[in-house]
């Protein structure tokens, strides 16, 4: 069982969903991002999704775009992501990295996998890489013992859910709605149906992301999925109140993910 599968087996055994929290590496600075990510772990994030800031993030809405832009302007370099992962892992955080594919390609797919694994990273989430195009990454992740999370969407056919789940390891990422990242008031009605369709094809844990920002929404997602993925809301919390803000939000969402739907949003 892989490290991430192990993590989800644990939260399942506890009868709850895992809380997966996203923030970009290097936001607002390399040191600052380590501090924020550590605060997310303290607040109750089970798994960190560390974003690689990228110039052309087509899956991201304005909140995460702006954070990535801040990181790049502050001088973020790709190799910094290994530093961040290493420091967060040393502090007890379990970290995956979410990255668009081109930075990985440019670094060298196998070299990236090697350096990421040696920094203590667990796997990659790849929003613009589908398994059909991922031969090099499939080989590198096998060679370096990394998990790999591909995405499925409400528009995915049964065949594509099947093939995407088969290529994934760790967990499968179900995008709750057709769209880009960003906090929304309501969890899309497409999400439960998509998770149910995924279950017919895979025993992998299924995380649901896009649009979750409150404990009530986390509880709702936790009622049908194995992982609650929150991104933009953490960026907003960091903007407003720094480490304390993300720690508080993590605690609130973690309560939701435990099924504590009564916790106020």
């Amino acid at each position, binding site marked *: 069982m892989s490290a991430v599968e192990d993590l989800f087996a644990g939260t399942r055994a506890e009868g709850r969903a895992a809380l997966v929290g996203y923030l970009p590496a290097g936001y607002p600075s390399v040191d600052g991002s380590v501090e924020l990510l550590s605060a997310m772990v303290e607040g109750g994030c089970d798994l960190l999704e560390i974003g690689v800031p*990228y*110039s*052309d*993030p*087509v*899956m991201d*809405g304005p909140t995460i*775009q702006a954070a990535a*832009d801040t990181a*790049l302007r502050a001088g973020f*370099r*790709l190799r910094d992501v290994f530093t961040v992962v290493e420091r967060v892992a040393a502090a007890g955080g379990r970290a995956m990295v979410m990255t668009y*594919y*081109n*930075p*990985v*390609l*440019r*670094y060298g797919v196998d070299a990236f996998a090697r350096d990421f694994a040696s920094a203590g990273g667990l796997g990659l989430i790849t*929003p*613009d*890489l*589908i398994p*059909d*195009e991922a031969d090099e990454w499939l080989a590198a992740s096998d060679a370096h013992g990394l998990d790999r999370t*591909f*995405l*499925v*969407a*409400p*528009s*995915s*056919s049964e065949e*594509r859910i099947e093939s*995407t789940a088969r290529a994934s390891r760790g967990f499968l990422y179900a*995008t709750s709605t*057709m*769209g*880009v990242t960003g906090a929304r008031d309501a969890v899309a009605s497409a999400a439960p149906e998509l998770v149910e369709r995924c279950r017919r094809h895979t025993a992998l844990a299924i995380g649901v992301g896009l649009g979750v920002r409150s404990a009530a929404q986390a509880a709702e997602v936790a009622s049908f999925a194995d992982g609650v993925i929150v991104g933009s809301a953490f960026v907003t919390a960091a903007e407003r109140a720094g480490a304390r803000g993300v720690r508080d939000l993590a605690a609130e969402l973690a309560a939701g993910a435990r099924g504590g739907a009564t916790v106020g949003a």
Partner: protein
Amino acid sequence: MDVKASDGVAHPSEHDPDERGHFGRYGGRFVPEALIAALDELSVFYQKARADPDFLDELDRLQRDYTGRPSPLTDVPKLGEHAGGARILLKREDLNHTGSHKINNVLGQALLTKRMGKKRVIAETGAGQHGVATATACALLGLECVVYMGEVDTERQALNVARMRLLGATVIPVKTGSRTLKDAINEALRDWVTNVDETHYLLGTVAGPHPFPAMVRDFHRVIGMEARAQVLERVGRLPDAVAACVGGGSNAIGIFHAFIDDPGVRLVGFEPGGDGVETGRHGATLSEGSPGALHGAMSYLLQDEDGQTAESHSISAGLDYPGVGPEHALLKDLGRAEYTPVTDAEAMEAFALLCRTEGIIPAIESAHAIAGALRLGRELGPDAVILVNLSGRGDKDVDTAARWFGMIEGESAAEASGTAIAESDLSRGPTQDEPSPAGADTGAVQR
């Protein structure tokens, strides 16, 4: 000449990508999974349509009666005198309705949109030519039209913004990133992933995820098919070289494709050299870039050592793009086509020369190809026959050119920055009645 506008669609190319859209190692689909269903749907509808006589007839009818195809081939002997005496022939895509080659692809995709039952069309645009063509087709076919355009481009191509709005389109200035074509594509992709059920993304060049590179190319193959027949009829032999400008690469692939299997015909793409590639301020993706994935396809791109996309620079909004279509990447690697940069200054010199020698105001994009033809002619000599794709007309660029050449009162050329000018400046008109400094003889005016 018995070339039909739909021939490039009806008759599959010998140079098609594999079934997943790979041209060698390039192309493919580097997009969010959420878009795969729409891309598959588009592939299916395109394959059905190209075998459907009704679709082909409708495309032919529109291309003849609406676009004005076939576009003429024009001998330009006075320009040729500046090109070592070579015979230069211009394929006049500038005379198409809406003023560029872009309409070829737009009509095809707009007809497909209707067939798919979608009512809303989105598009990106750089110079505005693709946006204008898309707005035009949407007006004609009763489709809602939203065009994303970088804020920088809305300023330097203000005339085309007005044209799109007159045609009923909504133009959304994009304020993220470099605020040019690259960012307009990002925003269009975000819109598409959100609204894909009812929306078709009418991509304007031979880039993007499969099936766009091959499909958009097929809609433009008519350019080369017509030109090949026209040159054979006019000259009695094939040209020695074919020249085209390359931003995303749609007009170039459109004219190149008919000559790929003619080994005696050089295919030369001229990329935006901006201030000169040595300055780093350029958009010469194939000449200076490296392989990577951007906007849905593997191809060459301008990037830094971390894989962050570099900002491109060009006086030509339509060429100001750090990526390029994947089939060009393959043609480059195979050595079948050559790609080389032309600076802003060299393009503007050629722009002025074509205006004055032949009475044709080219789009600044196409002026890069004219500059390239001048180089080729000087290299190949007076017996050479050079076919140039004059992909668009320069009405939209009059403001930029007037500034470049210092023709606007109260502004020196040195201040020219490609920004929009106030109406009061326009109404004052040119400041000089004497021959302007615009010309090859006097050299290009420096910015």
